[in-house]
């Protein structure tokens, strides 16, 4: 780089001008070193969680023995299964919608271009980080104490926890809009609220719907674990089955959940494609009819919007969606009275959780457990990154050698995404025994589904020009990838990897609940043993870690922009 810069200078003036020094900001050096340190820590963690292939192979006999004992996988009675499935889906859906509803004002406050002030922006963003940082399991634990048993604790836990991610993505969408239409409405004398509804909302709606659907998939997978703290649905039945050592039923339910997740993923991705690629047609029957009306000048008739195919389809989808929501409310049988009585439990519950303490353990034990959780997250993240670079690249249209290869790897990613990590962990624990190893592998496999997809999408979005230039210069496929595609996707990879680490730290906690090692084990114990002050301590530790990672990620994004 410096060479090419030097040449024209040298031509102009005959004297040798020193090549311009590449100035590196100190902040960039610091960020780079931090990145290196993180990778080193991840590798060390990987060594410390002690994943050994021989041991895995040895435990294979364990697995076969286990499956022999399970025998035939059994399912709950069809009627009950149907009810449980509907209940789980309904509960998750209502939770996600709850979050979407409250995310709208929060996103409006948090987006730089709509926020009424810097202070509001900071408050809204902090609330987002806070709700994102508290695991839904902990929220469910609290709400199970305050509400009568039923679906409400689950809905609220999913809802509140999801606000963080949904409001952030909503705000991002608002920040990416075209400001022109908003300005036009302001110029026509519209209020701020009118500006939002007529200028902003129509622009962000498709991306918002996509976000909500995406989060709904995540929540469906996450709902399994909520069963472990007493939230109704398939997860609860599964946890009962495993606790009573009825492995055949437990695995049966796990299989049902897996199928449900895959189906949901396919449905929502279909809806997303339709929403985002909504091709406007000008040749619909209604359009042609209207054009004829316009020609005859019958304006009065034109005041009725014609039933074009697109409108009909949207209306049918809308009615269907409304019916599903109504059905969800009906099947969840929400005890609305709880919203009145809950306030009286509030001080009592708060007293249970405050002040935080280390309970029967001392600080070093808890800190070590937290360290173990972070180590699992780091190790899993590095494994995920390595695997995702391979799988994600091959799933990208501009990297894969043939469309069939791309389709194959995309299918692999969808399948992996469909598996709830918790089920993966349970199966692995059965195979390899309790401990960090099972947790790490479960997390890293689960992560590939997400990171691989994000990476593939980012690679497909890179500029085509440099790739073509290299191909024109006679570069091989691999050279094009290394020289043009990968460097352009690097920034996205760093960003996505931090997102992965962020997700993994929370997920690592949760995996601990089923015996995947780390602080999650203590969290479940504390919850079941009514040591809520210890729960608070653990939550605070998680909170600090997550906020630290979030801050680090923000810094990295800013420096490497």
């Amino acid at each position, binding site marked *: 780089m410096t060479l090419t810069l030097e040449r024209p200078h040298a031509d102009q003036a005959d004297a040798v001008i020193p090549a311009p020094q590449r100035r590196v900001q100190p902040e960039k050096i610091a960020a780079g070193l931090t990145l290196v340190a993180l990778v080193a820590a991840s590798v060390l963690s990987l060594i410390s969680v002690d994943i050994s292939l021989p041991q895995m192979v040895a435990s294979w006999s364990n697995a076969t023995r286990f499956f022999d004992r399970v025998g035939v996988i059994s399912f709950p009675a069809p009627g009950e299964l149907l009810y449980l499935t509907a209940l789980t889906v309904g509960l998750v859906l209502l939770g996600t919608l709850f979050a979407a509803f409250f995310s709208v004002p929060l996103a409006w406050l948090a987006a730089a271009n709509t926020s009424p002030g810097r202070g509001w922006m900071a408050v809204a963003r902090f609330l987002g980080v806070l709700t994102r940082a508290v695991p839904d399991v902990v929220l469910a634990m609290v709400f199970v104490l305050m509400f009568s048993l039923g679906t409400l604790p689950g809905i609220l836990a999913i809802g509140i926890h999801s606000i963080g991610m949904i409001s952030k993505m909503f705000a991002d969408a608002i920040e990416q809009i075209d400001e022109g239409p908003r300005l*036009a409405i302001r110029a*026509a*004398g519209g*209020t701020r609220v009118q500006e939002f509804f007529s200028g902003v909302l129509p622009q962000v*709606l498709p991306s918002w719907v996509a976000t909500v659907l995406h989060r709904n998939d995540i929540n469906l997978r996450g709902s399994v674990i909520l069963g472990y703290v007493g939230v109704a649905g398939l997860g609860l039945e599964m946890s009962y089955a495993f606790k009573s050592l009825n492995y055949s039923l437990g695995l049966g339910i796990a299989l049902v959940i897996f199928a449900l997740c895959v189906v949901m993923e396919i449905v929502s991705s279909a809806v997303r494609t339709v929403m985002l690629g909504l091709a406007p047609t000008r040749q619909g029957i209604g359009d042609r009819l209207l054009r004829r009306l316009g*020609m005859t000048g019958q304006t009065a008739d*034109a*005041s009725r919007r*014609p039933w074009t195919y697109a409108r009909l389809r949207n209306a049918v989808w809308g009615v269907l969606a409304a019916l599903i929501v109504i059905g969800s409310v009906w099947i969840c049988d929400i005890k609305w009275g709880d919203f009145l009585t809950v306030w009286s439990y509030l001080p009592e519950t708060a007293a249970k959780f405050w002040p935080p303490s280390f309970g029967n353990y001392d600080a070093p034990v808890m800190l070590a457990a937290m360290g173990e959780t972070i180590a699992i997250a780091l190790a899993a993240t590095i494994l995920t990154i390595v695997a995702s670079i391979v799988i994600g690249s091959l799933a990208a249209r501009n990297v894969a050698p043939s469309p069939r290869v791309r389709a194959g790897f995309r299918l692999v990613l969808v399948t992996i995404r469909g598996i709830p990590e918790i089920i993966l962990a349970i199966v692995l624990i059965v195979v390899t025994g309790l401990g960090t190893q099972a947790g790490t592998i479960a997390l890293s496999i689960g992560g590939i589904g997400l990171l691989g997809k994000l990476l593939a999408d980012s690679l497909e979005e890179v500029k085509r020009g440099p790739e073509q230039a290299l191909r024109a210069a006679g570069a091989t496929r691999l050279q094009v990838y290394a020289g043009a595609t990968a460097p352009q996707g690097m920034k996205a990879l760093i960003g996505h990897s931090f997102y992965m680490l962020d997700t993994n730290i929370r997920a690592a906690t949760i995996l601990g609940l089923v015996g995947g090692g780390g602080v999650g084990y203590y969290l479940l114990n504390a919850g079941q043993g009514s040591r809520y002050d210890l729960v608070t301590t653990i939550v605070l530790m998680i909170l600090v870690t997550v906020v630290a990672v979030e801050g680090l990620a923000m810094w990295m994004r800013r420096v490497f922009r």
Partner: protein
Amino acid sequence: MPGLTSNSSVTTGSGSAAEPVIDVRGITKTFGETTALSDLSLTVARGEIVVLLGLSGSGKSTLLRHLDGLDRPDSGTVTVLGAPLSGLKGRPLRALRGQVGFVFQQFELVGSLTVLENVLTGALFRVRGPRLGLWGYRRELKLAALGHLDRVGLLAQAYQRADTLSGGQQQRVGIARALMQNPRILLADEPVASLDPESSAQVMALIREIAIDSGLTVVCSLHQVDLALSWGDRIVGLRHGQVVLDTATQGLSKQNVMEIYGRVTTSTGELDAIETELGTELGTGEAGEPDEQSELDLATSSSAWDNRR
């Protein structure tokens, strides 16, 4: 059709013709280092069709934004329809904006909404609260919007998504949206800069026609001298945020404009200094009158070339 169009006719306020509808006195506006408007004054009488002429960066857009209260001057006063804009905010400001239609260079329609919905957003200042979709608007408003669409020749496209229209059609929707306000003043910021010559001619003719039909006061910024001469009643030339030319178009030739433009700019020593500074900054070396002329010529000749095509 004609019956509906009459709906769009504007309630021309009382007030004598001598009283200016726009009265700008000595406004200065800076954005950081750059001065967009410097001590600019301008009055526009009712029913006048004024062209703001100037190169990009001469302050045309900024001036127009000031006339609608979208920007506030650092000093000086802007009075529109008898109301001083300086202290105006909230409901009174919105009410005033409602009386001033604005047509944008980039149309600024919401692409995912239907054409009719886009036009109806021009009526937002008359309704309370937000609107989502078509059912939020009263039938009279819908009929009025359809009437305006008829006026601009797009009735048949009323229920299409706005982003399915061509540029010229989108700008006509933008005009219909402005008409939906029943405005007394129409501001247009380079309304045809993003359009092909044929659509440009259509759109400019439409604006003038509507303005004369409804007795609207129009302030329209342009950068093509030819178009400005043939279209406007009065030309106001801007340069570095100052008025350097203000004359009726009648009997004015392109040569006149270029000459006047050149003379005025060089007669002020202060302007020269600014120009030299800007010129060197842009790397054009010693800038001055000839440089400016060639730049303007470039703009006009390119539009002439477009017209030939």
